[in-house]
């Protein structure tokens, strides 16, 4: 114990002395430290937001799922017979993966309602409210309940100005509109959104019985299954669907799995998380580069001071420790503030996210993301301080004292003024540029990162905000104006009529149906009589669409997972039949998380007949799609199963992504402006300190403040312009592969977003001009450099 005291005293003394140096340095370079503070603050904030989103947001789903005892597989079969229940019960009980299951009565039909300026369309499962609340598996949580006796309860995600308690809602069930009073909203993890493949709607007993009696939605049985291992959800879902298809080939069913829901309800979280992580690391890298540049500058500019400190007995370790204290201390304290700001901002982010996830998120203190943010930030700062400060070890006090600031070694005069053709200010600026590589590296790294942000913003603006088509082509796949599902009995009459109707520009079969690969894995097969008619041929990323009845095209993601490629054969099962097809092409789709294939109609009909079929129609621009759909339904009573206004459905769900992306793009552009401003602020401050004497001399010689401001701002321009151009070109090349990489988990292997070169060029020029303007404004401090002050200082 006693032996420790001298050590502690010595160590404490060392710390105190290092602290004094750190405090003096901090005071001396307030401006530079301020810029470092802002950059670290932004990095900490972004990092914390990202980590909270990445580490807890999706986990919130699991907590919610557990709290509601949610299903891992949800299956609704349009059959309410005891025979079906017994059959599936047997299957479930004999399967070791089943932990528990529940069976409930339900009504099932595809339906839709107006939402968010468009139309929401989904496989709807109608449950009697009290029965739903009493379910042992897949409980629903009432978030708002008016307590009234007759009406409908909707998933929380649809609560909006138009859909609110006390208002009425018209739900089109199949082709029958039903109007209900909205009584409340509930949360359901597995069936609480149209993104879940199945959407639950609770009706009060009277309305449930009414709907049952009307027969607009067939009676069905709802199976909720919890598994020992959630990772098996897709395969158990496939097993159950296969079992039903085998035993009840003509029975309609719909299903969803934990794997599908966790991805589809969190697409916005994934996109946002990706953007935040990229921004956080960009800013962190910029902050680190700035710190390195600061330290190197500080050592060079105050070499004489280091010499004095070493001469009076300070050790290199103490001097380096002072840098650790300065930057480590800033990083730690600022990080705490940044984390606090992130906690303050998270509710805003959460509001945007909840619009897509529909799962309420209760914010709380998250120790792990907070700790990680602190560790990443403080750790990386300490690391770069150590890497850049070790040169203090090599400072010899005598040499340092003698050299002072003049540590440069000018061997080459790269821009001789007598030979240069550049204007004077530019020539002088270029001289400084070429002698200040630190500044150039800092500027280059910052601008490369920001150019990529500009490119990303441009791509998002072009492919999502101003025109959603490229985004929809990639995420949704095929789009048209209207989708009409008709019974087989009127197909040819319907087709002929539509072909002759002058309001219809194009009609083609585009029907989705489930098949199985190797009799095991469920694939969503899209059939067409002629794939040359589809609007989005970009879905085919390699090879060609199937033309003949022995051909198939499959999703590239699925092909990668199963080792299949163009030319391979694959066996498809449906309706108890098994046929082998040749793969002609690879497609990209997010449908069914990439478990998707395309077949010609003739190809599918080798497996079985279609009893109903969906046609996609492109209508003339001036045609009211809803009115057209209604007219067609009325023309073929009881023969039209569903009509969908695709434009409206897309508008309804896509607007969430558009608003999210708009907010993100604006936020990252503002952030970019802030970053470049602070980096420039720091560089200009450093440059002015460095050039103060020279500018004083030049003022004495007759240079005006304006000339020197221009010269100072121009100093940064070569690195800025070159890196902005390289960043814009490089960003344009890598942006699509980068987005594809971020979205690979939902089945995207190739992204073909339009890279708007006009936007990027203009934005890059604006960024450069903005940076130049900021550099000029920040250089206004040159006004305060008076030649006389400089001359009398020495």
């Amino acid at each position, binding site marked *: 114990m006693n032996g420790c005291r001298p050590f502690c005293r010595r160590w404490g003394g060392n710390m105190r002395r290092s602290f004094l140096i750190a405090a003096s340095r901090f005071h001396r370079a307030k401006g530079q430290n301020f810029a470092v503070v802002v950059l670290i603050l932004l990095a900490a904030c972004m990092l914390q937001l990202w980590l909270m989103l990445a580490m807890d947001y999706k986990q919130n789903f699991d907590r919610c799922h557990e709290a509601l005892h949610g299903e891992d597989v949800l299956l609704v079969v349009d059959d309410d017979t005891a025979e079906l229940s017994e059959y599936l019960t047997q299957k479930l009980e004999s399967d070791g993966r089943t932990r528990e299951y529940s069976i409930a009565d339900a009504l099932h039909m595809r339906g839709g309602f107006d939402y968010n300026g468009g139309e929401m369309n989904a496989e709807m499962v109608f449950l009697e409210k009290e029965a739903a609340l009493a379910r042992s598996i897949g409980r629903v949580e009432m978030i708002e309940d008016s307590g009234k006796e007759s009406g409908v309860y909707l998933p929380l995600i649809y609560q909006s100005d138009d859909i609110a308690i006390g208002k009425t809602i018209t739900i089109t069930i199949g082709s029958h509109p039903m109007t209900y009073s909205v009584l409340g909203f509930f949360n359901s993890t597995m069936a609480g959104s149209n993104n879940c493949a199945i959407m639950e709607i609770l009706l009060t007993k009277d309305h449930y019985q009414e709907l049952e009696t009307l027969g607009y939605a067939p009676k069905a049985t709802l199976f909720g299954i919890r598994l020992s291992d959630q990772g098996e959800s897709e395969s158990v879902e496939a097993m159950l669907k296969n079992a039903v298809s085998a035993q009840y080939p003509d029975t309609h069913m719909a299903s969803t799995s934990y794997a599908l829901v966790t991805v589809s309800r969190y697409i916005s979280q994934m996109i946002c998380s990706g953007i935040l992580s990229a921004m956080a690391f960009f800013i962190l890298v910029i902050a680190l580069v700035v710190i390195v540049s600061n330290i190197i500058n500080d050592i060079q500019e105050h070499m004489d001071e280091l010499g004095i400190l070493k001469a009076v007995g300070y050790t290199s370790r103490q001097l380096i420790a002072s840098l650790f204290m300065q930057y480590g201390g800033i990083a730690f304290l600022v990080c705490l503030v940044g984390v606090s700001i992130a906690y303050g901002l998270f509710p805003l982010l959460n509001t945007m996210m909840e619009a897509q996830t529909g799962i309420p998120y209760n914010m709380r203190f998250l120790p792990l993301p907070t700790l990680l943010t602190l560790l990443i930030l403080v750790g990386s700062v300490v690391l770069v301080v150590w890497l850049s400060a070790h040169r203090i070890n090599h400072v010899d006090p005598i040499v340092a004292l003698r050299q002072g600031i*003049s540590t*440069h070694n*000018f061997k080459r*005069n790269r821009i*001789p*003024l*007598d*030979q240069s053709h550049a204007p*004077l200010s530019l020539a*002088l600026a270029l*001289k*400084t540029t070429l*002698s200040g590589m630190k500044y150039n590296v800092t500027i280059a790294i910052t601008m490369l990162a920001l150019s990529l942000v500009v490119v990303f913003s441009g791509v998002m603006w072009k492919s999502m905000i101003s025109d959603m088509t490229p985004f929809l082509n990639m995420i949704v796949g095929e789009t048209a104006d209207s989708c009409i599902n008709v019974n087989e009995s009127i197909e040819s009459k319907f087709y002929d009529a539509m072909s002759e109707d002058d309001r219809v520009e194009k009609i083609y079969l585009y029907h989705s149906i489930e098949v199985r690969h190797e009799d095991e894995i469920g694939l969503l097969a899209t059939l067409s009589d002629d794939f040359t008619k589809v609007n989005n041929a970009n879905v085919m990323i390699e090879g060609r669409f199937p033309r003949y009845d022995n051909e198939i095209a499959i999703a590239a993601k699925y092909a990668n997972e199963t080792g299949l490629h163009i030319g391979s054969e694959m066996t498809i099962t449906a309706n108890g039949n098994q046929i082998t097809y040749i793969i002609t092409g690879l497609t990209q789709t997010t449908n069914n998380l990439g478990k998707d294939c395309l077949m010609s109609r003739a190809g599918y009909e080798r497996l079985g007949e279609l009893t109903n079929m969906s046609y996609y129609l492109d209508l003339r621009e001036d045609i009211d799609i809803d009115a057209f759909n209604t007219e067609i339904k009325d023309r073929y009573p009881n023969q039209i199963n569903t009509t969908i206004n695709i434009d409206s459905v897309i508008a309804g769900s896509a607007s969430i992504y558009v608003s999210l992306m708009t907010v993100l793009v604006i936020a990252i552009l503002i952030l970019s402006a802030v970053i470049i401003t602070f980096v420039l602020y720091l560089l200009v401050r450093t440059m002015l300190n460095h050039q103060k*004497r*020279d500018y*004083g*001399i*030049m*003022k*004495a*010689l*007759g*240079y*005006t*403040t*304006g000339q020197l401001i221009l010269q100072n701002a121009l100093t940064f321009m070569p690195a800025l312009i070159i890196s902005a151009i390289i960043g814009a070109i490089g960003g344009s090349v890598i942006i699509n592969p980068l987005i594809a990489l971020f979205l690979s988990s939902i089945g995207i292997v190739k992204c073909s977003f339009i890279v708007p070169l006009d936007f990027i060029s203009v934005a890059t020029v604006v960024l450069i001009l903005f940076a130049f303007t900021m550099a000029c404004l920040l250089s206004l401090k040159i*006004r305060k450099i*008076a*030649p*006389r002050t400089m*001359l*009398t200082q*020495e």
Partner: protein
Amino acid sequence: MKKVLMKTDRLSKSFSSGGTMQHVLKNIDLELYQGDFTVIMGASGAGKSTLLYALSGMDTPTLGTLMFCDQEISAMNQDELAVFRRSHCGFVFQQIYLIDSMSVLDNIMAAGLLTTKNKKALSAKARELLAAVGISPATQKKFPTQLSGGEAQRVGIVRALINQPDVLFADEPTGALNSQTSLDVLNLLTQFHDQGQSVVMVTHDLRSALRGNRILYLKDGIILGECDLGRYTTEDQKRHERLSAFLSQMGW
């Protein structure tokens, strides 16, 4: 009759220091003539350099006016003063103040290019002047940190003269140089003065002051007296005595 180049009327300069005002120059009325080698002498803190910087437009007076020919310098803003300095003044400093990141030639070009765009002519003139002060073509390519003190000050003189200034202001030009180098620099200043260059020099060095034809003695911010030594010649043996007598009269 000598032509008046600069004229001050009740020129004053005060500085605020620690809450109190220090009046460094007090109501100075002075005329500087074309072709003169004016030397400003005085003890430390007398206000010599302050007067030099006020006269050269490097600093603005607190009160009073300063006229250059018909221009009122004291009414100019900073940018106008910068243009005035580049067009009419040349500076030679004690600390020389060459720009370390520029070669010898570039230091001169950087000053010269402020008044002309003819780089070729300017470059030729710079080389000619450099050669005249004994800076070889090889040295012209060097950087200031590679020069000796004498070489650097000679480059400083060339930089001051490159724009053919009406007045060359020199603030203790030999203060940081050794004896022989000082002599070389003084010879250069004398040589240019002989060619018609007006010079205003601040010094407290007797040997330097001997080069002037007009000596002003400053004490506590006022011009206490002045002495006309006549044009400098090496043969004038009594010059030193006359200056010493004047200075002793002034309480030097």
